[in-house]
């Protein structure tokens, strides 16, 4: 029974990690600008993240270590700082975008300026972390699942896609002058799909649930279904924006404008549905991102961590969550529209993927951690190839986009 429950960890991880301001922004922009032409990137990212999540779970089950503590013990403190700094920069930017997503969703319903609501969003997230237990956060997915269904309902309502749109699936139309934007979105989609914080969250959850080697099959199933579910919802967003926005030649420039994709099939109800979805998705992602970064720091430095303890039982961990949230708040206040932050944060993650994920690949091939459960060669090659590709695309497209004026 306990093992059956642990699948909620996978679903929870995938929803928080998959569907975030980053995925919604990149998927919606991709759908609006290139139709179905970027679904392949999402599928590729899903393959990589399912492989990686399975690895993080296997590492926790066999070595009884979370990802962050394994990095510190295997490679030492000096090396640990490298992925830590890379993740800290990219993920605080992304956290700022999630907070913005929460603020924008409330502003869509109340009509208040999202900038005014921004600090309120930060305080809300902090309150959840301060007060909630893991079990409370685990009940969220049920609600989220229903919300994701609304995207699929939207697609059905809009009917079958046109033949022109279908052809973009295998033959994307990229106009002259657009390649930089196209490749930037490839990087963004891969970066927002392959979220490194997901691995910290998942391996920490596995440790809290005291996984051992008997969980390995469960872990594999969880990785496939959890990530598959997350991937379907992201693809649904992309299809919906492609069908709703591309025929109108609307490109979305702010997070709020994305509500049009739900307003087309469902009018006013759709706008509210979009706001609720954005709120739920960004709250989940903000919590997961904030907690994961705090887990990474606390585990790497050897402090007590975890949500099942009162703040006074893990004081340094709770202090870290507070500091990270304040930094994200500052980034968000000076950073402008959350959509831009989400796009650049996601592309930045793609850029640093090799730095933050190669330690995992090294650990997964180390028998002193994995005993006889080390990686299959195929998994190594596939993961490494996707990670390197994502990073190269980000490296090339980010300067190009800056040069062409964003």
């Amino acid at each position: 029974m306990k093992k059956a429950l642990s699948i909620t960890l996978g679903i929870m991880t995938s929803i928080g990690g998959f569907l975030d301001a980053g995925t919604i922004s990149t998927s919606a922009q991709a759908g609006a600008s290139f139709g179905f032409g970027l679904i392949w990137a999402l599928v590729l990212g899903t393959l990589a993240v399912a492989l990686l999540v399975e690895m993080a779970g296997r590492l926790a089950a066999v070595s009884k270590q979370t990802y962050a503590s394994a990095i510190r013990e295997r490679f030492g403190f000096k090396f640990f700082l490298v992925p830590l700094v890379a993740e800290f920069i990219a993920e605080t930017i992304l956290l700022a975008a999630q907070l913005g997503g929460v603020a924008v969703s409330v502003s869509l319903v109340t009509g208040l300026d999202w900038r005014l609501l921004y600090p309120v969003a930060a305080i809300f997230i902090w309150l959840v972390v301060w007060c909630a237990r893991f079990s409370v956060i685990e009940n969220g997915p049920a609600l989220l699942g229903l919300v994701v269904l609304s995207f699929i309902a939207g697609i059905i309502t809009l009917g079958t896609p046109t033949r022109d749109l279908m052809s973009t699936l295998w033959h994307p139309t990229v106009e002259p002058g657009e390649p930089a934007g196209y490749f930037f979105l490839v990087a963004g989609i891969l970066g927002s799909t392959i979220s490194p914080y997901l691995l910290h969250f998942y391996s920490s959850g596995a440790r809290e649930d005291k996984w051992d080697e008997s969980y390995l099959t469960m872990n594999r199933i969880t990785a496939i279904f959890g990530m598959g579910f997350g991937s379907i919802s992201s693809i649904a967003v992309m299809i919906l924006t492609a069908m709703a926005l591309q025929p109108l030649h609307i490109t979305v420039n702010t997070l709020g404008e994305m509500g049009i994709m739900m307003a087309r099939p469902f009018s006013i109800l759709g706008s509210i549905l979009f706001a609720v979805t954005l709120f739920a998705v960004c709250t989940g992602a903000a919590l997961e991102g904030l907690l994961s970064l705090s887990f990474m720091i606390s585990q790497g430095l050897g402090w007590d961590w975890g949500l099942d303890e009162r703040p006074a039982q893990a004081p340094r961990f709770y202090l870290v969550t507070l500091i990270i949230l304040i930094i994200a708040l500052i980034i968000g206040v000076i950073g402008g529209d959350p959509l831009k932050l989400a796009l650049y944060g996601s592309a930045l993650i793609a850029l640093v993927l090799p730095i933050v994920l190669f330690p995992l690949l090294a650990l997964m091939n180390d028998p002193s951690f994995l005993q006889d459960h080390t990686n299959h060669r195929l998994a190594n090659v596939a993961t490494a190839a996707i990670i390197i590709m994502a990073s190269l695309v980000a490296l090339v497209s980010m300067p190009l986009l800056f040069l062409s004026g964003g």
Partner: protein
Amino acid sequence: MARDDYLVMRDLIDQQIVTADNRSVARVADVEAAWQEDGRLVLIGLCVGPQALARRVSGRLGPIARFLLREKFEHVIPMEEITGVSLDLRLRQNAVHFSVGQADDWVVNHILRFIPGNGRQ
């Protein structure tokens, strides 16, 4: 002593330190050793703290960290306090008996106390 009972640096450096009352206090940043009269090198204690960590990153960072922090956050745990080395390094006594174990109390009593619902006793 069998070969397997010898500790290597990898079993000490960067390992998690856990007290008798199951508090994770820190990870080993450095070790302190001394030459005995008979020429043997003996481990005296395990060092934790930001200055020891700064020395790990770069030799040049060490003096800067020392100037800024003035040994305030450095602690040495004597080797005789360590009871076991398995996945973690287990300490003989509860967290309150170690200066590093009091770091958490400091955070609770100086920062978190101002926020309601902190669970402080």
